């Protein structure tokens, strides 16, 4: 128990530093790249005077450290600020002649509204990936030189090479447009998450299958496997009770990293292609529209989630194998 508490205390304090650092980098980069958010907010025909007035009101002309300090102080109170672009109604306030401040949505509300959609998509993607990868990865690990091992290697090579944009469009064209089996664009029910989840699963499977196969194959070479057989345990028992358990630790670590990849990479691209209303679509649109508060909010949230996942993975790994001390 004392170990767990010390572990959590140490890792969480490290995590907070990481989140703050990432937050500062994102915060600074957003203000360095070209593209004035106020110009997008008020539209192209607004005068420079109007632009500057709203920029001043929003504090965008203050020095960077002042802006970041203010942001952190709000953040400490759980306030991620208001979107520059999205209205509470779900519409956009961009292009209006006023700053639409009364109607601008809370970033936290936007994120909270988008999380269930992304969670569903990510969960379904991981589930499909595991259903596909676990049997195939274990079989390939047990028979690395057999046909199943070679076929698995070939499949994972193909999967890892498929660009998710291309695969997404192809799946929409075949499954949704040609065959009419599944809906594809937007979200009106769980069915809308299936096609994008398949795209995520394909990308994840490629990595999970290979990692699992090599982990199982490596464990099978360990002395304890032969020792168990010599002592009268069946191979089936050895695999189900010992090999898979020992192969799980590298998989857990991989999973931490892959979930991060899902949140930060594929999910964003896939949600944009499918017009799926999760965190990814929210963020991509926010980037195009220079919606600083939303980008910052999502960046801080995803960094925090990544840090937490990694802490959790390390904790579980230590639980499985007490020799591991992170």
């Amino acid at each position, binding site marked *: 128990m004392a170990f767990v508490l010390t572990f959590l205390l140490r890792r969480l304090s490290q995590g907070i530093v990481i989140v703050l650092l990432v937050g500062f980098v994102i915060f600074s980069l957003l203000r360095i*790249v*070209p*593209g*004035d*958010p106020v*110009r*997008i907010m008020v*539209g*192209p*025909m607004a*005068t*420079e*005077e109007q632009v500057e007035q709203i920029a001043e009101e929003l504090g965008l002309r203050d020095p960077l450290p002042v802006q970041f300090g203010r942001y952190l102080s709000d953040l400490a109170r759980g306030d991620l600020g208001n979107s520059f672009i999205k*209205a*509470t*109604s*779900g*519409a*956009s*306030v*961009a*292009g*209006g*002649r*006023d700053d*639409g401040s009364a*109607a*601008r949505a809370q970033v936290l509300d936007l994120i909270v509204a988008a999380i269930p959609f992304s969670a569903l998509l990510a969960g379904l993607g991981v589930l499909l990936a595991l259903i596909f990868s676990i049997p195939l990865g274990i079989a390939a690990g047990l028979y690395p030189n057999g046909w199943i091992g070679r076929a698995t290697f070939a499949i994972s090579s193909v999967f890892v090479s498929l660009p998710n944009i291309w695969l997404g*469009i192809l799946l*929409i*064209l075949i499954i*949704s*447009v040609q065959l*009419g*089996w*599944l*809906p*594809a*664009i*937007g979200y*009106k*029910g*769980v*069915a*809308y998450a*299936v096609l994008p989840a398949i795209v995520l699963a394909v990308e994840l499977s490629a990595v999970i299958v290979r990692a699992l196969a090599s982990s199982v194959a490596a464990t099978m070479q360990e002395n304890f496997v032969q020792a168990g057989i010599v002592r009268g345990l069946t191979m089936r028992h050895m695999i189900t009770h010992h090999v898979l358990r020992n192969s799980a630790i590298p998989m857990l670590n991989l999973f931490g990293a892959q979930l991060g990849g899902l949140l930060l990479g594929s999910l964003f691209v896939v949600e*944009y*292609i*499918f*017009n799926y*209303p999760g965190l990814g679509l929210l963020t991509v*649109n926010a980037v*195009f*529209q*220079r919606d600083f508060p939303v980008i910052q909010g999502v960046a801080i949230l995803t960094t925090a989630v990544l840090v937490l996942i990694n802490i959790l993975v390390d904790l579980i790994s230590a639980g499985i194998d007490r020799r591991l001390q992170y």
Partner: protein
Amino acid sequence: MSATRRSFLKSGLALGGIAATSQLSAPFVRTALAGQSSNSVIFASGEPLTGNWDPTSHTILGQINFEGYVFGRLTKTPMRPENPSEIQYELATGHKVISENILEWTLRQGITFHNGKPFKAEDVKATFEYASQPGKSAWYPGPVDVEIVDDYTVRLNTENHGYPATAYILLASFLPIMSAEDIADGAISQTPNGTGPFKFVEQRGDETIMAAFDDFHEGRPIIDEFRFAYMGDANTRVLALLGGEADIIERLEPEQHDTLAERDGVRVKRTVSTENKYLHFRCNKAPFDDVRLRKAVCHAIDRDLITEILGAAGHASSSYVSPVKLGGSDIANYPTYDPEESQRLLAEAGYPRGNGLPELEYITSTGFYPKTKEYGELITALLQEQGFNVKLTVLETAAWLERIYQPESGEAPGHLVDVGWATGSPEPDLVLRPMWHSSQSLITGFEDAEVDAALDAQQAEGDPAARLKLIEEGVMPKLADKVPSLSLFTSVLIHGMQSNLEGAYFYPNGPIDLSKASYT
């Protein structure tokens, strides 16, 4: 075959699984989840709507499209190339020029707003006076006083404001008529309330739901429900159309036009738009403060090659405004591709073969207009061929938007800028004044007393025929001679739609009239 307890359980589980799958499969079938009635139209917009429903509060094309469904106007202008200035009366039944500064409108009776309020002269007065306030909207030439003659007659008076009231003849087709009550109490920002064929129901995320207005004065639309859905990505819009999740989509790329044109079940519609695409010179700084260099650039550009690159998205034109606008016919002295003339002008300006010219930055965008990067590269190559030392800067939309306008102080960035200008009326002044009148010159910084005088003269002319002559023989030849900008081509709006949707009219500035549309 004997049945054991284990096999029975297995069979039971299998049957249960099949039954559960059959229950679950329903939501997984696309058609079962379409979610809209068969008499519903989903429009996939390339732009989101703003949260403020006041039509005078923005310059967003997507929102202007939306207003076309909800609001009525005094007139409609179909803007067909064969008769750009044709006027059809909508909420008005006629107009009369009383004097240069007084324009009278007679109004249609028996019309109500979506909230039940009868439409009367007070609404026209409130709308015109509200929209024309200085700084309120970019589209109107100045304040106007509106006199109510009776409940169905109004007079627009500009005597105190220094411009002719006739400027509103064509602009009337662009100004959505709002309820006087909504303007007075500020409700216009909160809820769109018009006299158009569809009434606003609710905003659901990125989707705006509208329903047919039973009391629409031209008869209830056949379409029951209209959904305005934002889909930012052009590929996603095409896939939504093909998958039946959208019924009309906009802003297709030329390649997408060609692909959809060959497919069954959908069709494409090309509409020559009100938008011209320009290569603007920064005329208020060197070296393009020298007209000879501007002309040398114009003669170095082969515009036929540009329209080839644009394919279905471009329409060749040689005028400073679109052919669907008043005065948009081709200009006789418009610069043509002539490399020899380009060389002669370069030498005359003191830069033979471009020697001695500074590096010239050409700013363009990607992700907003079709093919800007591609034809930007072509223009760069053509200019370099003549000796111009041109550097092409391709910016994504937000960064480009920040750099296109003249700042209030200091120099605007770059030397050449690619910008389009789309407006919702055949009125040419919506383009001519913001672009080239020295009182505005938003992008070029161009100042020329002769051009100003020509622009003022045509604006002051109340007779449409005489005005057209002043534009065609006064304004346009002067602009072609001084070339503050080079109009490259006229944009073409490309829409895709389900092939069984009939009766829609596509306006050249984007809005679609679905009041008579139906599925066949």
